[in-house]
């Protein structure tokens, strides 16, 4: 067994909180740069230019790319040959969020109890924590600060099995159209199909961890991703919703077996400040 002090996990979560919120990933930057030439609307082009300039300012000034530094979603892949010392994994992750959001001057956006205690927790905890056990003696930590505006435009539908593939496509297009300018386009569309009610939503969000351009390994699904991305980009919403051809930078679909009676489809929308950072301990 490899022993890992949980203080190390806290430190990495803290660092990833700050890095994710202030330094844009290369894939996002490249996709935005390429989208400038695809955009035909002059206003749309100008908005894309603003977003690129914004990333430069954020990185140089250590300011958050977006003031909404999100709900901190953390994915831990823990090797089964790892044993932790010094507390619990959940506390270690929350402590990392607490330190990162405080020391990094990131916004604290979490309300303690929506029903009984509508006050800010003041340190952006708790994180949303997903844990997977995997072979090996490493821990992979992935952190995604997820903003409220794009989360609000995300939807789930328990379709009839007879709705099938056209039903999934229609639901995706309806969701993006309904979202319009609200989730800060150009967006990234994350889709989860199958599993249970909750698992479809889990898959939709987890698909957003992919790098832009990374296709589903199943060629049939990969084709749906590219075709439906092209459909989304015909909706005319455009950068900042001001009209244009670049409504989404990518569309990811993840699937899981379904029950004979159900056909869940979840669409989780990611904003133009798509923030994800990963580190292996």
């Amino acid at each position, binding site marked *: 067994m490899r022993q890992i002090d949980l203080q190390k996990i806290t430190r990495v979560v803290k660092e990833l909180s700050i890095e994710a919120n202030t330094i844009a990933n290369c894939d996002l930057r490249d996709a935005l740069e390429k989208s400038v030439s695809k955009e*035909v*609307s*002059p*206003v749309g082009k*100008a*908005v894309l230019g*603003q*977003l690129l*300039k*914004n990333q430069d*300012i*954020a990185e140089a*000034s*250590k*300011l*958050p*790319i*977006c*003031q*909404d*530094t999100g709900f901190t979603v953390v994915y831990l892949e823990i090797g089964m040959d790892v044993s932790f010392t010094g507390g619990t994994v959940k506390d270690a992750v929350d402590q990392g969020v607490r330190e990162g959001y405080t020391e990094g*001057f*990131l*916004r*604290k*956006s979490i309300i303690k109890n929506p029903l009984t205690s509508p006050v*800010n927790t*003041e340190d952006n905890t708790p994180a949303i924590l997903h844990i997977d056990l995997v072979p090996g003696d490493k821990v992979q930590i992935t952190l995604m600060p997820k903003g*409220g*505006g794009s989360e*609000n435009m995300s939807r789930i539908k328990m379709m009839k099995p007879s709705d099938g593939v056209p039903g999934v496509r229609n639901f995706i*297009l309806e969701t993006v159209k309904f979202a*319009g*300018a*609200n989730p*800060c386009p150009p967006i990234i569309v994350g889709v989860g199909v199958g599993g249970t009610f909750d698992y479809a939503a889990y898959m939709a969000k987890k698909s957003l961890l992919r790098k832009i351009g990374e296709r589903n390994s199943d060629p049939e699904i990969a084709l749906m991703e590219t075709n439906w991305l092209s*459909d989304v980009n*015909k*909706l*005319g*919403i*455009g950068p*900042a*919703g*001001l*009209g*244009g*051809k670049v409504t989404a930078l990518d569309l990811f679909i993840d699937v899981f077996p379904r029950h004979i009676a159900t056909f869940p489809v979840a669409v989780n929308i990611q*904003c*133009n*400040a798509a923030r994800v950072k990963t580190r292996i301990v």
Partner: protein
Amino acid sequence: MGNEVKRVETPLTEEVIKTLRIGDEVLLSGIIYTARDMAHAQLQEMINNGDELPFNASGSVIYYVGPSPAPVGRVIGSAGPTTSYRMDPFVPAMFEAGMRGMIGKGPRSSKVKDLIVKKCGVYFGATGGAAALLSESIVEAEVIAFEKFGPEALRKLKVNNMPLIVINDCYGGDLYLEGIDKYSEEI
């Protein structure tokens, strides 16, 4: 961006608002106030009770934003717009109090759009996600009410050439609808 760039100063007057058309790029300067969900609920209650507001609302511009904390050496952190539809229910009371302009992102309800025409107001869009860039145009910031709400407190900001675009003008125009009409294709 699209049309000519217009320099506009606050407080807004009817005369100036009537010169603004959808798609106009605006550089806004002067004093504006920040308020989002919780501050609006408080303001509406004060307006309904006939209480004095913590700022002069006459001709005012409200920016829907919850900024990130100011790091050392800066007046404010990142400060991009939040989604405006959540503030739609409070717009009638705010217009009643004297507000003339709003800054946010995303479409407004038909009721709000009607009020913009009736009350001679304007809705500006700021680019969602361009929060660090927008913070560069903020030269002074001060919490003037509801400090306990943290990012949702009411702030007085002094802005200098804040880059905005007119989304809804006092003639009933809607840039979001026009954009989709212009650029959508058959699927």
